[in-house]
Every structure is written in structure tokens, then in C-alpha cells.
């Protein structure tokens, strides 16, 4: 809201100084500049990706997004295996991380004693600071053998009839990448969701309890729905991290540009192939421009997924009201 006209002197002499002292125009300008800086940088990024991928865009057109071969020697490139790998690993990561993260957040916000909650939250937030490469090393030296010896045999024994759990498991796979991504994104979900849950007004809980609900009912049926938009926000943040995660994924996904029905098969993601192949490409060669185009595809994917998810939430909110 603008400053009320009554407090701003109308006379021209001295009014500029007085209006500046009031601070609002400066605040508007500065914060507006900050916001437009971010938009400008994003626009420059997209522009850079756009012109950097001119050759393959004109050569392959939309066939790039539907093609499946990846042959740098014959210069036949298709992005579909990478889009598939990116989406599958992120989806798997969300499926595992959201229940775990939300459960942890609810426990820390509602059910745990405050001192323990603060200490545990501090430790979980430290996990968000661990570099991606370390998670990759953790993945390849600890997680993959653990999955190979303990988890996957049980999974195959119980759910092996499902096509997603069939085929030979070599350790490195879409499944392993999804699990390591889940471990990486849980801290984001936990810390943001916990803050949002703590911010729910106490009278909501009290009202629910007064109406005769149990502690859990008040949490699950009143507090969590109240905080739902914030929780979705944390899930978007986590999803964005999962879509773009590079080093941890490339170390455990198997780096094989193929689409397989089974999660136990090796795969490839967009960020992983860019990280792997960029250094050896020569400047502005076809191969390098194709990698730029893959970057553009990843950007478009992120925008589409985020946009679709937000539309979904808007429609849910509109429907519930």
C-alpha cells in the first residue's frame, strides 16, 4: 500500500526529500530491482541455452525429444532415455521422501518434546549441507552393496512379479539413484514442513481437541491440511533439487541411455549426461550444442512439472472451497 497522502506534503519544495525519507519508494525500487535481477538472470540463462543449441534444434526439431538413440560418432541424438531417467528417479525419490519427510516433520513439530525436536532438526538440516559428490560416494560404497545384499532380494522375492522389479540387478540402477535422491531431498522436506507446521496457530489444535479429537486426529485432520500449501512448497523445492541433481545420480545410475520397464535396470538422467560428456566436447561442436539442448529440455521439464503441480493445487483449493 502506498503511504497515505495525508502524511506526504503536497508542496513541491521539500516534498521529494520528505517522500524519500518516508522510505517506501526506495523500498519498492530496491526490491523490484532484486526481483527483476532474478528474472533477468533466468531469461539470460534460457537465451544462452537457446542460441547455444541452434544447430541440433534446426536439425532434429521435435524429434529430439522423442528419439532414443545416443550416438556421438554418427551424430544421432535423442533425449527420450534421459527424460525418462530424470522423471523416474525424481518420481521414485518423491514417493520415498515425501512420506518419510512429512512423517519426520510431523513428529518433530507436533509430537516430540521441544528440546529433542530442536536438536534432531539441527542434525537433519546438516544433511542438506552435505555435498552431492559425498552422497554419490555414499551411494556407491554403502547404499549399492546394501541394496544388492539386503533390499533387492527381499523386494524381488515379494514383489518380483511386477515388471518394475524384474531383470538382473547390477547395483547401479534407476532404483539406486531414486533412493539416493530420496535421502538427499528428505532434509528439505523436513525442515520446511516442520517450520510450516509450527506456524499453524495453536487455537486450531485446541479447537480440534476441544471438539473431542485425539492428538493424532487433530494433527492429521486439522493441522496438516492447514499447512498443506507450505508442505507442497517444500515438496516442490525437493523436486527441483531431485530433477537437477548431478553427481550423486551419475555415480549410481549406471549411465546407460536406455528405457527399461524395470527400476532395477541401469538408466541415465539429463544432468548426469551433461556432467559426463561436456568436458570432452569441443566448443560449439554438434555434441556440445546437443548437450545445451538437453539443458533447455531440463529447464522446460522443470517449468512444466512445477506449473502443472501448482495448477493442480489451485484446482484442489478451488474445489475444496
Amino acid at each position, binding site marked *: 500500500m502506498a503511504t497515505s497522502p495525508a502524511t506526504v506534503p503536497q508542496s513541491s519544495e521539500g516534498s521529494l526529500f520528505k517522500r524519500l525519507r518516508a522510505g517506501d519508494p526506495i523500498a519498492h525500487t530496491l526490491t523490484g530491482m532484486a526481483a527483476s535481477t532474478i528474472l533477468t538472470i533466468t531469461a539470460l540463462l534460457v537465451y544462452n541455452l537457446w542460441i547455444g543449441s541452434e544447430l541440433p534444434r534446426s536439425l532434429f526439431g521435435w524429434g529430439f525429444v522423442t528419439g532414443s538413440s545416443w*550416438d556421438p560418432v*554418427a551424430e544421432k541424438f535423442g533425449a527420450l532415455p534421459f527424460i525418462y531417467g530424470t522423471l523416474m528417479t525424481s518420481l521414485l525419490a518423491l514417493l520415498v521422501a515425501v512420506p518419510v519427510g512429512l512423517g519426520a516433520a510431523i513428529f518433530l513439530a507436533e509430537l516430540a518434546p521441544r528440546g529433542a525436536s530442536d536438536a534432531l532438526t539441527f542434525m537433519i538440516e546438516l544433511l542438506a549441507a552435505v555435498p552431492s559428490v559425498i552422497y554419490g560416494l555414499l551411494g556407491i560404497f554403502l547404499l549399492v552393496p546394501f541394496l544388492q545384499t539386503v533390499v533387492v532380494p527381499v523386494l524381488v522375492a515379494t514383489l518380483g512379479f511386477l515388471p518394475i522389479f524384474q531383470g538382473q540387478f547390477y547395483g547401479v540402477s534407476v532404483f539406486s539413484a531414486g533412493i539416493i535422491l530420496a535421502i538427499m531431498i528428505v532434509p528439505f522436506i523436513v525442515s520446511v514442513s516442520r517450520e510450516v507446521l509450527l506456524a499453524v496457530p495453536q487455537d486450531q489444535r485446541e479447537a480440534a481437541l476441544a471438539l473431542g479429537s485425539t492428538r493424532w486426529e487433530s494433527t492429521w485432520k486439522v493441522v496438516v491440511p492447514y499447512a498443506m500449501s507450505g508442505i507442497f512448497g517444500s515438496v516442490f523445492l525437493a523436486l527441483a533439487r531431485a530433477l537437477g541433481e548431478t553427481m550423486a545420480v*551419475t555415480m549410481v545410475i*549406471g*549411465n546407460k541411455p536406455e528405457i527399461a520397464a524395470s527400476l532395477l535396470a541401469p538408466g541415465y538422467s539429463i544432468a548426469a549426461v551433461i556432467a*559426463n560428456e561436456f*568436458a570432452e566436447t569441443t566448443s560449439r561442436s554438434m555434441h556440445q550444442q546437443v548437450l545445451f539442448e538437453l539443458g533447455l529440455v531440463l529447464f522446460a521439464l522443470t517449468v512444466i512439472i512445477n506449473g502443472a503441480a501448482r495448477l493442480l493445487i489451485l484446482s484442489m483449493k478451488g474445489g475444496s472451497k
Partner: protein
Amino acid sequence: MTNKRLSAAVAALVLLSACGSSEQPQNLTGAGATFPNPIYSKWFSEYQKLHQLIQINYQSQGSGAGISQVTEGTVDFGASDQPMKPEQIEKFKTTRNTGVLHFPTVMGAVVPTYNLAEVTTELNFTPAALAGIFLGKVKKWNDPAIASANKDVKLPASDIVVVHRSDGSGTSFVFTDYLSKVSPDWAAGPGAAAAVSWPVGLGGKGNEGVIGLVKQTPNSIGYTEMIYALQNKLPMGTVQNAAGKFVKASPASVTEAAASVPMPDDFRVSITNPAGDGAYPISSFTWLLIPETIKDAAKKAVIVDFLKWMLGPGQAMAPALEYAPLPAAVVTKELAAIATIK
């Protein structure tokens, strides 16, 4: 008076040090191949101990980056595990208005490494076996293609898990260059390049990634730089060379591979699958890429001096780091070629 004398003395000293001394502080930058990074780091640090004002900074970002950056002139020299292609040399000429010279520095080799719990001896690989395995046509360890060369070894009937490089690299180039020479199917299919479309297998990032995958995956086979295999004490297979002998990779067998191939004047040569009884067939040079004309006289002097030192005392440091030194004939030829740097 004393002030004037003092300032005169200082001015004289500055002038003297500026024009009289042959050791100017110099900063050279280079970028390129990751394979020779250990020996280049050692060379540049040893060279700096001898010439304290000269600092050579090398970034191992990959051969492709080295070629790009030396073409654009952002670095003083490049390094590559494969010689520049004719198109890349043309582009260099049009961008920098001068040619580019290749100087081989050391040699390395690519070895097949495997993980077979029951097999404790070295396996022999024929060219047909290697090509078949990496094409996905030889699927089991006890396939006749492998068993025929390893008659007294009990090979399991398990599936072969192939491991290759996921990132583009000179190591892949040397390996695929060899496979293209020994297998028409490979040449017609994936071909020879730093990054190819591998018919089968898992991809590991870097030599470390491949080794990690091979160590952790039973019944797997991969390829890696000889140095990594030696340092990590991995089982290394022997490879049958063009003369029919099964040769194990070592600095000596690699140097012999280089000695048996005639060296062209521009030093751009592939030495995979050479003739020669003791030659290891999957060997290669690695090159420094130097512009033919260097305008800055001081930088040119440093580069020329470094190249001469590299071909002399530098070569003696190679075997300790498991790199194969250049054969004597190549060294002589290079010393002559240094004179062509204008």
C-alpha cells in the same frame, strides 16, 4: 642528497633487473587431457623448482576442453590424448592465424580389467574376444572366444557384465580406436571416438568410476588406464598383438609399440595394434598442443625451454609414475621440431 642517491640506486636496480635478467616472472596456462595429469603436475612443479619465477598452471579438464581453449587462445598450450582432427586444425588456423604443433610427451596404455572370483591367473584376450565382449556378442565367460586363449583356466558359465566409460575420454578413444582396427563390426558400428554409443554395458564416470564398478560387480570386465590398474593392483588381462603374442601392458611394452610405428613429421599418429613382437597393442601417445607462432617472445622462450627439458630430464621421471617414456628416435625428431616454433 642521500635521498637522491637512494632513489637513483633503486631506479638503477629496477632497470637492471628488468632488462638484464633472463628470468622474467612468467605465468603460463595450459589445459587438456586428464590422463597425463599426474606426470604433467610433477613436471611443472619440478620445472618451477629450477626456474623459480616461472609458473605453469595446468588444468585437467579433458582433451576436448584443451583443444577448444588452445584454439580460442584462452590458454597458452593445450593437451590431448588424441591428435587434433583435420577440421579442428583448420579451425585453429582460421581462428589464430597460425598452425598448431603436436608434441608427444609420454605414452600410456589401456588394459582390460576384470572381476572373476574363481580366476586367479591372468586371462589372455584375443582381439576377437575383446571386440565380441564389448559388442555384446560374446555373452558368457566360458565362450569359446575367451576359453580358446585360456586353456588351463576354468571359466565360469556366468554372464559377462561389461563396464565402459560414461564420460568422453582419451582412454575410450584409444580403446575404441584399437577395437575399430581389429574388428570390422566395431568400425562399422560404434566407431572410434572419445564418446561412442556402447552396445552393452554400464557406464562409470572416470577411470575411478569404471574401476569401482568392476570391483563391486562380480563377473564384470572393463577397460582402464594401465597406471590406474597398476596402482590399484587390479587383475590385468594380456592382449594378443598383431604378431600373435599375448603381451602384458608395461612401460617397456608400450615404448616398444611406439618404436615399431614410423613417426610422421607432424607427430599425429595412432600406435594401436602395431607390428612388433613385444609391443602392447592398446597403447597411445599423449600430446601437447603448441601454436606454431608465439608472439610473446618471453613466453615462447619458456615454452621452448620447457619442451627441451621435458624431452631430457622430464622423460626420466616418467617410469616412476608408471608412464612409458618416449622412444629415443621420437625424442630426436621432436627436438628438431622445436626449432619450427616461430
